[in-house]
């Protein structure tokens, strides 16, 4: 016997409605493949290209707390904004972000990253300069590589000083696809 779908759904909705969870997640379908999306009461907490929850859930639990529960309804707003972005109807995300636990350098780099406009690119060195650490291009690269909110915090818009794409934690083909979507490539 397994728990009937309806009973399962009722529990998940009650848990979210009673605010008894630290974070909710669900799988959001996208042209780049399924995304695991998590939100806490502070905002978007994770976007992961790896739809297998195991490692992602551990990470989300470390950020928000151990009560991480799947709940389609709770991630509805994030799903809608992502859908609109992939449909070419959204250029700026309005979602609140949960940046708990990040070092202050990381937060300021991500803050600058959030201001890189849709359809443009910048470089690791330029971002480093904008946070007042012009010699820290490599550290900026590490921040991009560990970005837990890809797409929404557009690390795909950051390229090498020679214009090469360099790399992307979600796979270079996804970086290419995102830049094509935004009309850069």
């Amino acid at each position: 016997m397994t728990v009937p779908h309806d009973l399962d759904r009722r529990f998940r909705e009650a848990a979210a409605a009673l605010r008894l969870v630290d974070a909710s997640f669900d799988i959001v379908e996208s042209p780049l493949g399924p995304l695991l999306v998590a939100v806490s009461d502070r905002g978007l907490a994770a976007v992961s290209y790896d739809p297998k929850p195991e490692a992602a859930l551990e990470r989300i639990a470390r950020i928000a707390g151990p009560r991480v529960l799947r709940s389609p309804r709770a991630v509805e707003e994030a799903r809608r904004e992502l859908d609109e972005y992939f449909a070419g109807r959204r250029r700026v995300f309005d979602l609140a972000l949960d940046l708990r636990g990040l070092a202050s350098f990381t937060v300021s780099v991500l803050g600058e990253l959030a201001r890189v406009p849709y359809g443009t690119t910048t470089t690791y060195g330029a971002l480093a300069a904008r946070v007042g650490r012009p010699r820290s291009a490599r550290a900026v690269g590490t921040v991009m590589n560990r970005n837990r909110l890809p797409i929404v915090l557009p690390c795909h818009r950051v390229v090498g000083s020679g214009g090469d794409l360099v790399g992307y934690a979600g796979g270079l083909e996804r970086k290419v696809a995102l830049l094509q979507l935004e009309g850069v490539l």
Partner: protein
Amino acid sequence: MMQAVAIPPFERFYEQHRDEVLRLLRRRLGAARADDAFQETFLRALQAYPRLAHGEHLRAWVLTIARNVAVDALRRQRADGGEPAEQAVEDRRPAYRELAGLTDGLPPKERAAVVLRYGYDLPYDQIAAALGSSEGAARQAASTGVRRLRRRITP
């Protein structure tokens, strides 16, 4: 010292135990009333989850919450003048079974506290979470239960 087992993300805990919890509740309450008790069990577990000190004995813990929810449901039903409650079906868990006969006549809270403490070796914070009471009240319930048993065994 062994390293404490980390508390898993709730999703994993829930997926691991939801089927067994529902089976237990259906045995005790019948299919019709098991659904509400299922939701109540996991909402209580959610409420207590952040207070857990480690991730050990989670199965025993959630089954105890389920048993308490079932006891509450049967008690409410009796208070409402409903059908007489059917005798609770005992689980076949060795630790529980050993103590089950011995603790039979104890009040439900004391019995649960004694069995969790001495049958499952759970720490008091988890017993408290399972019983929906404070740690002090759990400690009190276990020690009152043991005293009651002692009086019964040594006339």
